[in-house]
């Protein structure tokens, strides 16, 4: 990281007298914090993937010694054979790492930090020090979570949803420290997330450049802004629930203990009241980013910008009243099931608007298939599958059959991997020059994309089929069930694809690090984009601009008639443009 940032600093002559530690470690610069989040979350993405590989080994070859499994301690895999308790740790930690520390940090930690000030024309976040605190509490939280794998009895093993009473009582789960560390880590994570969110919201409301009206904001900023609101209001509920869980574990309280009148389902309500907005926290920023990528790749304005904004807001609003769809068979009042089904089905509407508008954007465009665009289009294609498979589970009678089977695993991976992660890869390639001043290698980027796309589908599509056959989730050894024995070849196929999928990520990994030092030097605006971030040098200097840009138009004026090029930056003043009338400076 140090060398990268050193290159970054050498690239421009901005006056900067901060010490090394202030610049790169306890930095308050939103871009450095964004890059810190990037490294942290990519690390957790890698770890989470590694855990998934072990899960897939066990499912394909249950009870067989895993290659390199001998490296694991006796308590996890004696002789390389994964133990059920380790398998459950893998399942739990894979989910926890991927949801909280990989995807959420990549989208909200990395992109909100890096992009919001650059895209709205601000020098930095509204509260740079709070921003730094947000990163370091996320860091601490991640370390606690990672360390929990190595304490006696290992990490939490109650699934990432941490259903009580299994998670609350160590005589049921078999893990004590690991469970407690999960709760502590999530409380710290909640703190980080709340600090981040309040920063993003304040920044977007108060720190926009002159002329950057609400409806001139890029869709990525809209999405990150609405996501921040979701995070701000949803995460404290999780923090409250995690505190109750921690007290249950260490103080012996009885919130969820039926023997003392506690209610196990209360945890599910609290968790999913957070958890469903969380699902949209994990997809909305990706949708925003994909809008940028597709408009850029299509050289066309976004089709129906306003309805895109309202669709984001609509999804966010509906996200608050659908949490019960995770609980149709939980023993909750079935009448509530009907209500939640209707609200859940309605989410299909704004989602459909977004998909069709992306297609509308591509329609009659001039499609440039650079790596980010490939990922953007893949997002639309894969998110469509993920969205449509969600309808099966929204319909309560069908959900009763496929709930907690591999069908839901397929669905959530189509949204989180096929959706969010494709957008993230596209976003990393797209904004890489602004972060590090160099381009990522295009050819290897394309090879990585195609391999990922193929093996990704090979991994997750068959999960729909085994899910339909009734294959339950989180089974250590599916061959225990006679009706699942015939599915074993499919499990093996999935696992082989999964190994190849993980292997393909090595290309990205190498490309990422190689390009940082040896990649082609990036120009200021390598993608010919309109956003404000492309009006400052690559990499962007500390403070972003000496004089803040003034905005004259929306962010998607591609191929506008009358413009000399096929793009028209937001800050370029045409003779017909009038300067924004500024109200007296309000913020201080």
């Amino acid at each position: 990281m140090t060398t990268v940032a050193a290159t970054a600093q050498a690239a421009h002559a901005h006056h900067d007298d901060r010490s090394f530690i202030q610049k790169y470690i306890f930095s308050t610069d939103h871009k450095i914090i964004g890059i810190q989040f990037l490294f942290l979350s990519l690390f957790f993405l890698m770890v989470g993937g590694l855990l998934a590989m072990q899960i897939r080994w066990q499912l394909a070859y249950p009870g067989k010694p895993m290659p390199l499994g001998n490296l694991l301690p006796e308590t996890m895999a004696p002789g390389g054979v994964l133990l059920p308790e380790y398998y459950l740790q893998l399942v739990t930690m894979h989910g926890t790492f991927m949801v909280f520390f990989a995807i959420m940090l990549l989208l909200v930690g990395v992109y909100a930090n890096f992009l919001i000030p650059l895209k709205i024309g601000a020098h930095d976040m509204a509260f740079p020090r709070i921003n730094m605190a947000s990163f370091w509490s996320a860091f601490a939280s991640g370390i606690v979570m990672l360390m929990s794998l190595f304490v006696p009895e290992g990490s939490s093993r109650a699934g990432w949803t941490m259903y009580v009473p299994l998670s609350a009582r160590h005589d049921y789960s078999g893990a004590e420290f690991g469970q407690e560390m999960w709760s502590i880590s999530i409380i710290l994570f909640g703190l980080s997330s709340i600090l981040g969110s309040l920063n993003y919201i304040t920044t977007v409301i108060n720190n926009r450049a002159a002329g950057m009206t609400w409806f001139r904001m890029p869709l990525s900023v809209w999405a990150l802004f609405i996501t921040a609101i979701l995070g701000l209001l949803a995460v404290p509920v999780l923090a409250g629930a995690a505190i109750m869980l921690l007290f249950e574990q260490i103080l012996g309280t009885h919130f969820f203990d039926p023997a003392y009148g506690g209610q196990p389902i209360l945890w599910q309500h609290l968790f999913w009241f957070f958890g469903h907005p969380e699902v949209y926290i994990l997809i909305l920023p990706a949708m925003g980013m994909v809008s940028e990528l597709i408009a850029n790749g299509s050289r066309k304005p976004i089709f129906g910008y306003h309805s895109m904004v309202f669709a984001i807001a609509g999804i966010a609003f509906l996200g608050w009243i659908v949490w019960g769809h995770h609980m149709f068979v939980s023993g909750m009042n079935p009448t509530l099931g009907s209500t939640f089904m209707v609200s859940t089905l309605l989410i299909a509407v704004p989602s459909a608007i977004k998909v069709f508008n992306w297609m509308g954007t591509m329609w009659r465009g001039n499609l440039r298939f650079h790596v980010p665009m490939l990922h953007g289009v893949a997002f639309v294609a894969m998110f469509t599958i993920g969205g449509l498979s969600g309808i099966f589970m929204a319909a309560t009678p069908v959900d009763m059959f496929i709930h907690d089977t591999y069908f839901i695993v397929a669905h959530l991976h189509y949204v989180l991997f096929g959706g969010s992660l494709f957008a993230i890869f596209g976003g990393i390639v797209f904004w890489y020059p602004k972060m590090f001043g160099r381009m990522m290698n295009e050819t290897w980027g394309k090879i990585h994309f195609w391999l990922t796309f193929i093996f990704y589908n090979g991994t997750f599509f068959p999960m729909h089929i085994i899910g339909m056959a009734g294959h339950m989730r989180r089974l250590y050894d599916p061959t225990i069930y006679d009706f699942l024995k015939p599915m074993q070849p499919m499990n093996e196929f999935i696992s082989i694809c999964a190994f190849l999928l993980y292997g393909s990520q090595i290309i990205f990994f190498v490309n990422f690090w190689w390009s940082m030092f040896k990649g082609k030097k990036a120009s200021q605006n390598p993608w010919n984009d309109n956003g404000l971030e492309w009006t400052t040098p690559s990499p962007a200097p500390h403070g972003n601009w000496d004089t803040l840009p003034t905005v004259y138009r929306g962010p998607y004026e591609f191929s506008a008639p009358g413009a000399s090029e096929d793009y028209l930056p937001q800050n370029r003043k045409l003779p017909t443009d009038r300067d924004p009338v500024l109200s007296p400076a309000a913020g201080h």
Partner: protein
Amino acid sequence: MHWWLPPQGSTFAPDIDYMFTAILVITGITFVGVELGLLWFIFAYRERPGRKAFYTHGSTKAEIIWTAIPAVTMVIMGIASNGLWVKIKGRNSVPANAYPIGVHAKQFEWWFTYPGPDGKLGRTSPALVAKTTNPTGLDPDDPAGHDDLVVRNQMHVPVGRPVVAYLTAEDVIHSFYVPEFRVRQDVVPGMEIKSWFEATVPGTYELGCSQLCGLGHYKMRAVVTVHTQEDYDAWMQRTAKEKGEPTS
């Protein structure tokens, strides 16, 4: 390999499968439409020298169309699903003549209580649970429970008769799941949840726990045998004799 839903084994399996297929057709059409559209756009509008994108900010008409169609479809789907949902899980959905079976889940076993000749399940209480000797916590003071049969990991049900399972859990949340019956219900400690079904095809099926319940979650399997009424009665007689319970 098995490429479709499991065989249908209960009265609401055909309804659920019909619902599943209907959704599959609707989403399948959308899926094919979207993906073909994308492919077509990718091919037809790829960048070529001299080509310029068509400058437009959208079309309100088109957007209204593709907002209204999903909205209407979803509302219809919601109404259709809800009827079936209420039939299966609704508050008063359990048929009056349903045959009661107690299902007690614990780490990592299923214990089934059959009502015996009196057709009534005895009262149970978590406080009375004793491993091996009284796994389900039957109350010895309740006469209805004296003829109850308690069997581990074996569920036997008569065919063509509604069965209502009284689901209780001892420790953590489990989930009662028989794929062929298309029935699933979480079993929550501290609650007694009723879930009913009516088996249609005699044979043996598997019951699995589908909610992560600990180390032995994957091993928490029971066998469901659907008998004709005569076979069922015979099984009941036989088992009662083995267990030394009074028979009718």
